[in-house]
């Protein structure tokens, strides 16, 4: 068969292949070669990128009527018959439709940046650090992760999507627990895996139900088939609680998303997932895993809304679940984000919150807005996480430096190995101290304190980092503004604005809801997201100011740098340097001192100092560009003045490129939220609300934290919330603790006492032992029977024959006389007998 693999219909097959191949290559062959592994992994993603982007441009720009338009479904894709199921065939294939293209734009780019960043990040660790020891493995996992995500993206059916989904679950487990010497890390890995697993079970049930109902899992057969959707949406189909099949399936799928995209109440794994190396956080929270969760509900939106219409306040159960839980998540995530002192945990809660935005938006049918926010969020959140990784690295280098200089006393509340931490007693310092406790401790600490923050992550110890790592600070500013929704010059602003505009439809377009019941979900979602956006702006401001502004609040922050030489490069240094030697090396000074000639040693020294820094900060710049400018593609057509950029006249007539692209994924075009309210006085209410949210939130943040807090000063928000609530917030409102107490402890008790002790050991084992003993006795009896009777017969017959032979062989003595005697005796007997008879 001749297949032109570069044809757009077949190219999607190849997109996930390079990372998956790279995974195998690194795992099987390249495990010992660190840099080669990294290069192979990065090149593989770059190959995927090289395939994905042309495909995106071909689809989005150069294909007429791409997507679903006027009843014609024009997408790229191909499929093969995967298995014959007797009465039908299961087809496995790939597809590229408008929604897929957006992800094909975002995912490979973000991944490529993450991979490049990872090289610098991982290499910056000292030799004996677990990051370095398992360097190749990290890239193998990362490759598998990328391959799985790309598989999920190009899948044309739910099963293939689920495969990618599950492989990503595995990868998240492996990567979160990458530093498994740390108890907190492997516990976080198990937590993430188990939490998402709970959701995946429901998801899988939903898949099974969907397949049972429709006999197919292909998007084309289900999502673009109005007859099927109508049948599924008909509540007469099932009698279960009066719900339609679509509602049940949709709810189960939404539960899958709740687990994967960390929505309340299954969000608990995500803050702990920060235990993985920071590129992993970027991968999980931006490019791949949580995006996949949201992508799933966006993809299945037609099914979720089947039987209802959110734009007429006819909410189906899945939409209600999404709207309510998304709102709660957005609010709660934003609320908890305020109180976090761990820079990565702030971002984690912001991720939860932003994912809540998307899910809630989808709950009210804001299809395009949710997809848009997914893309923009991926960019700026990947950026933010990578920035935070750079910050943490700088802090770790500061700590490392202090340690080398013999200023250990300057490192604040450093947890010593063996000292109790909330997670156990096995904290690993930045120098890769050996783990001292790998035993599983079955009991949960009574008063678990989740407010524990590792030293390099602690924002209270930062401050003034702008001067130390300016590139990171600026790019993080771009990301933060985008997250907070800074007007115009941030991608987040446009997507959040569009979500709010969609939520405000009940005011700006009340005619749609007339005669259809109250648009309560819209109202709920709008106010939740409005306040959540406000809180987002607040804690983002707090985070950036605490990190970068003001003066260093600790010795560590003073020496934080990304251009720190490795330990083994400075072994000649004395431990008790005077002050000026503490200043990090500046290669330029050396150049000035020496003659300006090239030397390989000098180049290597320079490279070792600058390469990691460049590798880490280069991707930041790229992503910062997208975090700032990517939002213009989703600009409202009537946005004043700026719509000139999109072909408008300054007042109206612009183009919402993103809407035009993505909306073609659906059979029925999603509504375009109007820019302003109806009536004589046109108030641009959505714009006003998002501006208000940003300026109030950011303004409050600046008011509170504008004067940077001093070292040791209590957090100013604590006074506002009260120390009790503050502590509760830092402890994640005790939800994790609640789960521990409610589920983990009883389950553990049940597992140990009932399952293990009572059932397994005493009942099943006892029973099995009894059975086994009985069997052994029976076996012994059978053995005796065997030995006596069967062996007796079996051995007896041959031995009888043998002894008979042994006896009778004496006849054949070789003595002729004996033969003669016998024969004559027998002859005589015959003769005598003859005589007697006759």
């Amino acid at each position, binding site marked *: 068969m001749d297949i032109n693999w570069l044809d757009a219909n077949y190219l999607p097959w190849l997109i996930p292949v390079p990372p998956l191949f790279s995974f195998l290559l690194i795992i099987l062959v390249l495990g010992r070669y660190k840099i080669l592994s990294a290069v192979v992994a990065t090149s593989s993603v770059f190959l995927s990128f090289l395939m994905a982007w042309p495909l995106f441009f071909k689809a989005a720009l150069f294909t007429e009527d791409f997507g679903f338009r006027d009843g014609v479904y024009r997408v790229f894709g191909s499929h093969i018959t995967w298995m014959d199921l007797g009465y039908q065939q299961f087809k496995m294939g790939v597809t590229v439709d408008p929604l897929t293209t957006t992800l094909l734009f975002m995912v490979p780019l973000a991944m490529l940046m993450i991979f490049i960043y990872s090289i610098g990040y991982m290499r910056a660790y000292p030799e004996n650090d677990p990051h370095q020891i398992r360097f190749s493995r990290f890239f193998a996992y990362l490759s598998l992760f990328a391959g799985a995500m790309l598989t999920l993206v190009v899948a044309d059916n739910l099963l293939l999507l689920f495969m990618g989904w599950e492989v990503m679950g595995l990868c998240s487990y492996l990567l979160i627990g990458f530093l498994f010497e740390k108890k907190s890390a492997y516990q976080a890995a198990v937590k993430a895996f188990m939490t998402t697993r709970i959701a995946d079970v429901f998801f899988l049930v939903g898949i099974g139900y969907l397949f049972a109902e429709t006999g197919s899992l292909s998007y084309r057969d289900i999502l673009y088939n109005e007859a099927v959707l109508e049948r599924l949406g008909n509540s007469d189909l099932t009698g279960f609680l009066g719900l339609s099949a679509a509602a049940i399936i949709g709810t189960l799928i939404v539960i899958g998303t709740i687990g994967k995209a960390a929505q309340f109440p299954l969000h608990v794994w995500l803050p702990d997932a920060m235990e993985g190396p920071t590129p992993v956080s970027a991968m999980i929270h931006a490019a791949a895993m949580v995006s996949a969760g949201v992508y799933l509900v966006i993809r299945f939106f037609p099914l979720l809304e089947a039987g209802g219409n959110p734009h007429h306040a006819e909410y189906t159960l899945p939409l209600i679940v999404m709207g309510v839980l998304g709102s709660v998540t957005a609010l709660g995530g934003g609320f908890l984000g305020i109180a976090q002192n761990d820079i990565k945990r702030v971002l984690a809660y912001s991720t939860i919150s932003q994912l809540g935005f998307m899910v809630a938006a989808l709950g009210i049918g804001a299809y395009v807005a949710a997809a848009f926010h997914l893309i923009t969020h991926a960019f700026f959140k990947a950026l933010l996480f990578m920035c935070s990784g750079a910050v943490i690295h700088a802090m770790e280098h500061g700590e490392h430096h202090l340690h080398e200089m013999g200023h250990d006393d300057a490192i604040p509340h450093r947890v010593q190995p063996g000292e109790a931490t909330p997670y156990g007693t096995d904290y690993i310092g930045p120098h890769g101290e050996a783990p001292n406790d790998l035993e599983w401790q079955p009991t949960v600490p009574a008063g678990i304190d989740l407010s524990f923050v590792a030293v390099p992550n602690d924002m209270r110890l930062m401050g003034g980092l702008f001067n130390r790592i300016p590139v990171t600070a600026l790019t993080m500013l771009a990301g933060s503004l985008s997250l907070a929704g800074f007007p115009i010059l941030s991608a987040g602003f446009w997507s959040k604005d569009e979500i709010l505009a969609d939520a405000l439809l009940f005011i700006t377009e009340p005619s749609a809801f007339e005669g259809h019941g109250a648009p309560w979900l819209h109202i709920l979602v709008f106010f939740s997201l409005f306040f959540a956006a406000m809180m987002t702006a607040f804690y983002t401001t707090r985070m950036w100011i605490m990190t970068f502004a003001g003066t260093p609040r600790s010795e560590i922050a003073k020496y934080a740098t990304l251009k720190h030489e490795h330990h083994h490069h400075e072994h000649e240094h004395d431990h008790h340097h005077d002050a000026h030697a503490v200043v990090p090396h500046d290669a330029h000074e050396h150049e000035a001192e020496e003659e300006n000639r090239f030397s390989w040693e000098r180049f290597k020294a320079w490279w070792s100092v600058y390469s990691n820094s460049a590798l880490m900060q280069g991707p930041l710049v790229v992503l910062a560009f997208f975090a700032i400018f990517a939002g213009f593609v989703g600009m409202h057509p009537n946005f004043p003045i700026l719509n000139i950029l999109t072909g408008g006249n300054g007042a109206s007539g612009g183009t919402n490129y993103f809407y035009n692209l993505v909306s073609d994924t659906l059979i029925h075009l999603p509504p375009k939220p109007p820019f302003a309210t109806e009536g004589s006085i046109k108030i641009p209410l959505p714009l006003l609300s998002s501006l208000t949210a940003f300026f109030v939130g950011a303004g409050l943040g600046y008011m509170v934290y504008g004067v940077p807090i001093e070292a040791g000063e209590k957090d100013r928000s604590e006074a506002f919330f009260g120390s009790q609530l503050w502590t509760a917030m830092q402890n994640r409102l005790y939800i994790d603790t609640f789960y521990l107490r409610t589920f983990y402890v009883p389950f553990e008790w049940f597992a140990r006492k009932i399952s293990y002790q009572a059932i397994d050991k005493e009942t099943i084992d006892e029973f099995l032992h009894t059975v086994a003993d009985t069997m052994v006795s029976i076996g012994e009896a059978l053995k005796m029977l065997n030995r006596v009777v069967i062996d007796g017969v079996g051995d007896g017959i041959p031995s009888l024959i043998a002894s008979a032979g042994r006896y009778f062989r004496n006849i054949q003595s070789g*003595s002729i*006389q*004996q033969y003669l*005697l016998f024969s*004559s*005796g027998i002859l*005589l007997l015959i*003769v*005598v007998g003859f*005589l007697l008879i*006759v």
Partner: protein
Amino acid sequence: MELTWQAIAFFIFSALTLGGGFAVVTQRNIFHAALFLMLSLFGTAGLFVLLIAPFLAAVQVLVYIGAIAILVLFAIMLTRRLMGLTISLNQQWPAAALAMLVLFGVLLLVLTPVGDDILGQNWSANLPTDGDTAPEVTYITVREIGVAFSTQNGFVLPFEIVSLLLTSALIGAIVVAREDEAI
């Protein structure tokens, strides 16, 4: 039965024959056994004479006693080392004796008028019960026997075969009895 000189001679020769035979099979010394065989053969020759077969009696004395017995004596002397064996009979001799007694009994029953009464069937009815009823006979001369051996109507073919047999047996005996290295 009238006790004539013929009867006396018969008993004497019979006693010689049977006594010699018995001594042959019981005598420990094999050399003595061979000598007793000669005695037994001599008795047989006497019986032949009584039966008016002088040629056979002569051949008996010449060939048996003169040739075969001497041959056997040679063999005995060649294996002289074994002459002094103490046990002459093997372990099965009582069984053999019993069997032979039974055989003799059966033969008696079959061949003698005594058996006819016991068996109720007259096996020997066709036999002449009295020696007196035996037909008168003329002496058969050596010449007649020689003619019988050499005429076409007589026994020339069996005679030739027997001579051949004898020749080949002698050659074979020579071959078998030769020293090993000749073969």
